[in-house]
């Protein structure tokens, strides 16, 4: 089951060109949807206005190598390791879903474009399955236990709203896709309807970018980069920069009560999850 290419069987009915055209169409839908989202919300204009303002107010000039170093830090810590999450469970769930999505999408593209009908190396179908299962573990964990309107607001996990368009269409697409592949290897006639549902859910996922939070994968790294730059250039978004690490601050009268206190006082309100609603 894990080593057979689910798309190869489809080539008996459809030309590989149809499948490939569909994948290209979905990629175009994501690009067009993201551009529309940027223009419609004015997020790019906001980003560059904010960027110019931060640059003009900055105490230190950040250019060239330092800017590159901040970009690398953003890519490694904030993007590749989901470093902005303060909740460890959310971070693990996000990493599972994000890497699962990347692996699943890349494996799908390879299977559809390189091995649409030919014998397929076992690695790619295995990656397709692993990526899909990672999405399901991270996504359902998030959906039922971690998402904030369930964890903090106390709402039912079955309460669906606009914000769920992205996660639900992603979960539906992958769940139905894996069920379709499983039924196909068993030779079940039910695989056809499941494939149809999988295509509908996938079209909703990639076609609804302007109305879902799909585009967060583009604007979140931009916001994380801007945050790091503002810290480096001294504006820090007007946030205070005084800390207890500074010996001058330690010597101040108002800090007398902390003179012998440890530098690590442990966790405060984060000792418990925010579930006192």
């Amino acid at each position, binding site marked *: 089951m894990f080593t057979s290419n689910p798309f190869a069987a489809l080539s008996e009915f459809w030309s590989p060109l149809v499948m490939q055209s569909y994948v290209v169409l979905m990629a175009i839908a994501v690009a067009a949807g993201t551009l529309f989202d940027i223009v419609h919300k004015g997020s790019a204009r906001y980003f560059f206005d904010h960027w110019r303002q931060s640059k003009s107010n900055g105490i230190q000039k950040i250019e060239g190598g330092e800017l590159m170093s901040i970009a690398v830090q953003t890519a490694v810590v904030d993007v590749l390791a989901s470093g902005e999450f303060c909740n460890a469970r959310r971070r693990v769930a996000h990493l599972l879903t994000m890497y699962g999505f990347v692996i699943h999408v890349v494996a799908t593209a390879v299977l559809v474009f390189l091995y649409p009908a030919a014998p397929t190396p076992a690695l790619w179908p295995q990656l397709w399955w692993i990526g899909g299962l990672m999405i399901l573990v991270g996504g359902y964990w998030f959906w039922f236990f971690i998402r*904030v309107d369930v964890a*903090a607001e106390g709402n039912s996990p079955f309460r669906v709203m606009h914000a769920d368009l992205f996660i639900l269409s992603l979960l539906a697409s992958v769940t139905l896709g894996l069920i379709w592949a499983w039924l196909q290897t068993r030779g079940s006639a039910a695989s056809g309807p499941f494939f149809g549902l999988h295509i509908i859910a996938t079209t909703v996922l990639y076609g609804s970018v302007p109305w879902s939070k799909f585009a967060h994968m583009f604007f*979140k790294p931009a916001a994380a980069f801007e945050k790091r730059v503002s810290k480096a250039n001294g504006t820090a978004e007007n946030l*205070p920069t005084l800390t207890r690490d500074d010996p001058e601050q330690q010597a101040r009268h108002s*800090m007398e009560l*902390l003179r012998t206190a440890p530098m690590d006082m*442990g966790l*405060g309100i984060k000792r418990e999850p*925010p*579930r006192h609603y």
Partner: protein
Amino acid sequence: MPTFVYMTRCDGCGHCVDICPSDIMHIDKTYRRAYNIEPSMCWECYSCVKACPQNAIDMRGYADFAPLGHSVRVQRDEQKGTIAWKIKFRNGTEKNFLSPITTKPWGTAIPKLADVPGPSKEMRDSQLLYNEPKWIRMDDGGLRTLEAAGLKLQKGVAY
């Protein structure tokens, strides 16, 4: 000065929803990020601003006494046991403050009231409140004072 949320900073962790005493910090139905559902009911207590781990919540000053260009931002560093404020005036003047918010590591000074034996009839009938006079130390070296704690009062305003 009611709160508002920078949507690109918020990661929807729910700490502000949890802590808001006015119950007006909620999760947006479209983007699953926090927002202030009713700014006119905001107590301006800054609880959510201090609790936000992403510093995604800011205050919007009323135009009559806090015109454009000012900023009051806060960073509550629980690990270091401090709170820092940066006050920026419209004319560019800046004031920075750093103060303690605890003197002992978090969670180490919680009285274990469940282990305390219940009050006797004599204590119930007494005029004294719970743990008086022990906790005000009337019978144990006098009242708690700065001198007793090894501190001294400085003249003027100490920043």
